[in-house]
C-alpha cells in the first residue's frame, strides 16, 4: 500500500509498552513484553508481524484487542485514541476482530456451531428470530467456504478438524463485518495441507471486502506469501520493517538475516548442492526481564560493534524501509554523503 501523508492508519501504536511484574520464586521482576513499539496498519493492507516467541508479537495483537492494557504509549483507531468503556468497546469490536492461534481453545467446545455463530448475530442485532439467525449463520459458513453449510451448523467444534474450526472462528469474526482482522498465528496449529486454505481465505477477504489484516506469524515464508508489508520484532520492539519483497530479498537487520537463514527452505533440499547454514548465531531468545545497555540483539549479533553494546539504535528510515541497527545508520550516512558527492 502506498503510504501517503493524508492517509490515516486504521490502527496505530505509538511508543507502545507493556511491562508486567511477575514473581519467580519470591523474586519480583519486570518483564518488558513490549518496549516502545511504533506501528501503523492501513486500510486494506496485509501487514505481517514476524518474530520468535517472546518477541512481543502476540502481545501487540492482544493490546489491540483490549485483552491486555498497555502500561505505556498509546493506541489509536482511525486516528482517535482507543477508549476502553463498555459502550466504546462494543463499537470498537465491531471494527476490529481477533483470530486466535488455537482454534481448539478459542471456541467453547460445549456449544454447537449454530449457537456460537447465532450468539454474535443476536448480540449485535444482525438477525431476528430463529429462522433468520439460522439463515444468516449458514451464510457466514458459506462465506468461509464451509459448504454445504447445513452439514456443519449442528455439529460441535470437537467434531471438526483444526482447519474447519479456524474457519468457524473466522466466520464468527466476519459476522460483525470488521474493517480490521488481527490474525494471531492463525495457521500454526493447522496441518500443512489446510494452512494455505486459511491464508488464501484471509487474502480473499482483503481483496473482496477490503479488510486490513495484521498477520502475526513466526513463519517468514508464509508472511512473504500473504503480506504486503513486513515488520520484524525482537525483544519487544520492531527491529525492521518495509515492503515484504524488499525485506525478504535484502534484509538489513542482522536479526532478519538470521531468521531468514534459519527458516527451512525446500529449495535447499539435500543433494541440491546448496549448503544449509551450519551454525546460526549462538544464544537463545531475548530475556525480556533483563536490562540491556545497548542494542538488545547485540549479544547474539554476528556483526556486533562497540557502539552496539552501549547505545541502543532507534528505528531509522532508509528508502521507504526502517531498521534499528547501527550498520544501517552507517549505510544511510554513506548513501547521504554519496548523494552529496554526486550533486
Amino acid at each position, binding site marked *: 500500500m502506498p503510504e501517503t501523508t493524508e492517509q490515516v492508519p486504521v490502527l496505530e501504536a505509538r511508543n507502545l509498552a507493556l511491562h*508486567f511484574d511477575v514473581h519467580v520464586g519470591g523474586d519480583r521482576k519486570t518483564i518488558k513484553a513490549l518496549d516502545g513499539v511504533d506501528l501503523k496498519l492501513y486500510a486494506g493492507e496485509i501487514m505481517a508481524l514476524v518474530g520468535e*516467541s517472546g518477541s512481543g508479537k502476540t502481545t501487540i495483537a492482544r493490546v489491540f484487542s483490549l485483552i491486555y492494557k498497555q502500561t505505556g504509549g498509546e493506541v489509536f483507531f482511525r486516528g482517535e485514541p482507543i477508549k476502553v468503556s463498555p459502550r466504546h468497546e462494543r463499537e470498537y469490536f465491531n471494527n476490529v476482530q481477533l483470530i486466535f*492461534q488455537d482454534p481448539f481453545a478459542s471456541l467453547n467446545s460445549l456449544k454447537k456451531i449454530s449457537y456460537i455463530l447465532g450468539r454474535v448475530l443476536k448480540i449485535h442485532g444482525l438477525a431476528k428470530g430463529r429462522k433468520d439467525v439460522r439463515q444468516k449463520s449458514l451464510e457466514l459458513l458459506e462465506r468461509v467456504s464451509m459448504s454445504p453449510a447445513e452439514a456443519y451448523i449442528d455439529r460441535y467444534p470437537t467434531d471438526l478438524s483444526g482447519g474447519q474450526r479456524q474457519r468457524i472462528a473466522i466466520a464468527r469474526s466476519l459476522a460483525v463485518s470488521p474493517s480490521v482482522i488481527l490474525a494471531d498465528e492463525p495457521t500454526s496449529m493447522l496441518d500443512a495441507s489446510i494452512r494455505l486454505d486459511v491464508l488464501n481465505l484471509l487474502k480473499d477477504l482483503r481483496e473482496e471486502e477490503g479488510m486490513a489484516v495484521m498477520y502475526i506469524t513466526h513463519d517468514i515464508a508464509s508472511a512473504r506469501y500473504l503480506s504486503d508489508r513486513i515488520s520484524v520484532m525482537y525483544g519487544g520492539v520492531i527491529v525492521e520493517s518495509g515492503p515484504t519483497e524488499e525485506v525478504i530479498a535484502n534484509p538489513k537487520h542482522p536479526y532478519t538475516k538470521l531468521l531468514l537463514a534459519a527458516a527451512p527452505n525446500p529449495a535447499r533440499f539435500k543433494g541440491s548442492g546448496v549448503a544449509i547454514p551450519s551454525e546460526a548465531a549462538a544464544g537463545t531468545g531475548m530475556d525480556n526481564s533483563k536490562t540491556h545497555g545497548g542494542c538488545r540483539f547485540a549479544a547474539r549479533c554476528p556483526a556486533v560493534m562497540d557502539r552496539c553494546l552501549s547505545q541502543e539504535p532507534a528505528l531509522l528510515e532508509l528508502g521507504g524501509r526502517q531498521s534499528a541497527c547501527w550498520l544501517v545508520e552507517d549505510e544511510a550516512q554513506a548513501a547521504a554523503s554519496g548523494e552529496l558527492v554526486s550533486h
Partner: protein
Amino acid sequence: MSIDVQDHPPLDKGPEPDLEVKKQPRFSYKARVQGFKYLGKRLVTYLIVAFISLVANFMLPRFMPGNPADQMIQSIVAKTGNMPSPYALAQIYARYGDPNQNVLVAFWHYLVQTLQGDLGLSIQYYPVPVADLIGRALPWTLYLAIFSTIIGWIIGTWAGAKLGWKPGRRLDSIVTPIAMFFSSIPAFWLGLLLVWFISYKNGWLPPQGAYNESLAINLLDPTFLTSVAIYSILPMATLVLVGFANWMFTMRNMMITTVNEDYVQLARAKGLKPNKVLRNYAARNALLPNFTGLAQSIGASLTAVILAESVFIYPGVGSLLFAAQGTRDYPVMQGVMLLIILVSLVFNFIADSVYVLLDPRTKEK
C-alpha cells in the same frame, strides 16, 4: 494439595525466557529462603485458624441454652457436696459467662489462661485440671493416629503402585471395588464387628483397653510394650482397613497417569530394568501427592481415631471426650476440641514442610 501460584498476566506463548543464569542449586541459600517464605505464609494461616478456634471456643458456651456456669457449679456441688474453691469459681465464670464482667476483659483472661496451658478443671473428675486429663490421654491417641495412618499409607501406596503399573488386570477389577466398599464402612461399626468376632467369639485378642492393667506403665519394660502392641492390634486393624483404600486409589490413578508420561516411556526406551523404571521414574513421581498427603491426613484421621477409641474403650482423648459428653463435662469437651484443632494444624504444617523439601519444582513457582 497444591501450591499457591501467583496469578500474573500470561506471557507470549512459547518457552519461558531463559533464566538459567539465575537458577540456583537445590539447597542454595536462596531456595531455602523461598521455602521459608512459603512456610511463613502458611504459618500465618494456621495462626489465624488457631485464633478463630479460640474465639469460637470462648463464644460457644455463651450461646448455650440456660446458664452453663450455674449448671456447672450445681453439678460440682452435687458431686462433691461442697462449693467449688474460689479459684475454680472464678475460672468457671471467666470461661462460661459472667454477667458482671465485660466480654472483652473476660476474653482476655480466657486467652491468657489458655495460652498458659490452663484449660480449667474437669467437672467429672473435679478438681483435676483438664490439661492433666488430656496430657494423659493424648499419647494414646497420637500413637493410634500416627501408626494407623502410616501403616494404611504404606499398604495403600504399595498396592496402588502395583495396580497402577499394569492396570486392567483381573486383580485390579476385583481388588478395587472391594477396597471401595471397605473404605466406606464406618470405623466404629467395623470395630464393633471385629471386637465381637475376634475377641468375644474366639478370644484371640483383648477386646478393650490399651494394655494389660495389671502391668505398670513403664516404657522400658518389654512386657508392657508387648502388651501395648497386642492391645492396639484391633483398633489399628480397624483404622487401617477403613483408611488404606483411599491411598490405594489415588496412587493407582496417579500411577496410571504417570506411566503414560513421556519420561517413563523414555526410561523404558533406555532399556532400564522394569523394576527400576517402576521405582525411580513412575512411582517416584506418582508418590509426591501421596507423600504430602500423609502428614496432613494424620491430623484428619483424628476423627476416625476418636470414634474407634470409644468402641475399644481405649484411654485416648476419644474416650475422654465420649465420657465428658455423657456427664456434660464442658471444660473437657472444649479442651479436647481445641487440642484436635491444634494437632491437625501442626500436622498440616509438617505436610507443608515436607512438600517444600521434596519437590524441587515447588520453589520455582
